[in-house]
């Protein structure tokens, strides 16, 4: 073969493949419009969160100081004051809810994902959990009212139980999903080495699925921290710091609910500041969920 003749005339332009971008060609236009739409939708979806945070910082930021974070709620015409007891109350009740729902949720998920995934009981439990995720939160309050409050009165414990009812399905489903992601060849290997079921769960399934499980737990905690309806029926409110678990207890969400409807400027300002704190707590748990959910190599 002879060498390529570089001096040969360039073929006619019409015969060359046309590679340049054509904005107004039909498919390109369709593609462009759809891409723009998804962009717009993504931005639109982020507006509520950012506008809420913006408004809270503007309205509540001014009152957010050490006094607001530690002092007790003010009475009618008082100035100053804060919501320290509500922050503590929210954290205590979310803590109680976590203590109840995390162990039960993870153990239930172990059953659903590993021990009896195809059993009848698993099918029922999964269905119940999925239904409960869409459960109106106020009904969790009514339920706890019926089983605890009628007998023992309003308390932090009852508040924690009602939040646990709401957290449980989220944890069960997220933890089951996380454990199902553990590849079967990994569990097979462990069984192949002579592990019992317990050893496989404890040494392989739980550690490998841990980031996903923690993400579910954090999201459930974040959701529970912001709940108000169930607490109305269970923990009520208190103007003092919590001293025992069996007494009515303050929470941020109920404080916001109460103060925002008051005719006093001071209380309304505190409601804004408390909203900001609540959003920051929820945000912190969400960010934590993202951090622990990141795959580690």
């Amino acid at each position, binding site marked *: 073969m002879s060498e390529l003749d570089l001096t040969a005339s360039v073929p006619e332009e019409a015969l060359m493949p046309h590679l340049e971008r054509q904005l107004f060609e039909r498919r390109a236009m369709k593609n462009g419009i759809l891409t723009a739409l998804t962009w717009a939708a993504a931005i639109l979806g982020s507006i509520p969160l950012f506008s809420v945070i913006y408004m809270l910082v503007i309205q509540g930021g001014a009152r957010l100081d050490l006094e607001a974070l530690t002092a007790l709620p003010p009475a009618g015409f008082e100035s100053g004051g804060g919501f320290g007891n509500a922050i503590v109350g929210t954290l205590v009740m979310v803590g109680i809810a976590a203590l109840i729902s995390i162990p039960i949720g993870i153990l239930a998920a172990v059953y659903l994902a590993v021990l009896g995934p*195809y059993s009848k009981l698993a099918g029922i439990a999964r269905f119940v959990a999925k239904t409960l995720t869409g459960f109106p939160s106020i009904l969790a309050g009514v339920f706890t009212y019926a089983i605890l409050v009628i007998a023992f009165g309003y308390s932090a414990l009852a508040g924690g139980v009602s939040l646990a009812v709401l957290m449980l399905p989220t944890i069960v489903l997220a933890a089951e999903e996380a454990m199902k992601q553990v*590849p079967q*060849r*990994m569990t*097979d*290997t*462990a*069984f*192949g*080495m*002579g*592990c*019992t079921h317990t*050893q496989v769960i404890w*040494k*392989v399934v739980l*550690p*490998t699925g841990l980031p996903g499980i923690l993400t579910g737990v954090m999201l459930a905690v974040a959701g529970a921290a912001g709940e108000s309806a169930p607490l109305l029926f269970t923990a009520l409110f208190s103007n003092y710091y919590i001293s025992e678990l069996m007494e009515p207890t303050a929470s941020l969400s109920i404080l916001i609910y109460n103060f925002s409807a008051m005719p006093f400027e001071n209380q309304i300002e505190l409601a804004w500041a408390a909203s900001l704190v609540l959003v920051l707590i929820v945000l912190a748990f969400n960010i934590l969920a993202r951090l622990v959910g990141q795959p*580690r*190599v």
Partner: protein
Amino acid sequence: MRATAEMIASGAAAFSPASEVVIDCDLQKVFYGDFLAVRDSSLPVEKGKITGFIGPSGCGKSTVLRSLNRMNDLIPIFRFEGMVKYHGQDIYGRKVDPVVVRRYIGMVFQQPNPFSMSIYDNVAFGLRLNRFKGDMDERVQSALERAALWKEVKDKLKNSGMSLSGGQQQRLGIARAIATEPDVLLMDEPCSALDPIATRQVEELMLEFS
């Protein structure tokens, strides 16, 4: 060498260290649900020999292999007719614990699958299961040496097993399986996911063990 590679890559191999029959089996019928996966298969596995199965894919090689250490028990629809004798004992006997069977008859799988823990912990895994009381470091090192992986990982034993290459991961799997010194090692196409060089290393390893 080439022929060996073909044979092992397309089949499954069982080997046992140190010529008596270790496993004698007669699989009359193996079902998955209504599907008859394997019938009328019998073979003796002799001590100190590499026994290989070859056949087209889907013919039941893995099923036979998984029947030899009761891995199939983990599949709920599995049904077994026949017998598998290990040193004369029926491993499907009424009083036999499949978990214990698997401690004597180890297994290496097709895909490399390190646990998400350090290289050291991967190899020590089986030893810890058996509450091994001796010198752990020494056993881990010797297992890695025998799996021809020690030189490559000796300075990064704390790194995750997942950080190794595919071929290294498979050899890590072998090191993990041999650390407990199982009597018999079942290998289900251990080289199918490996490149020719890693395949050769694994094959040389198997020859060394036999």
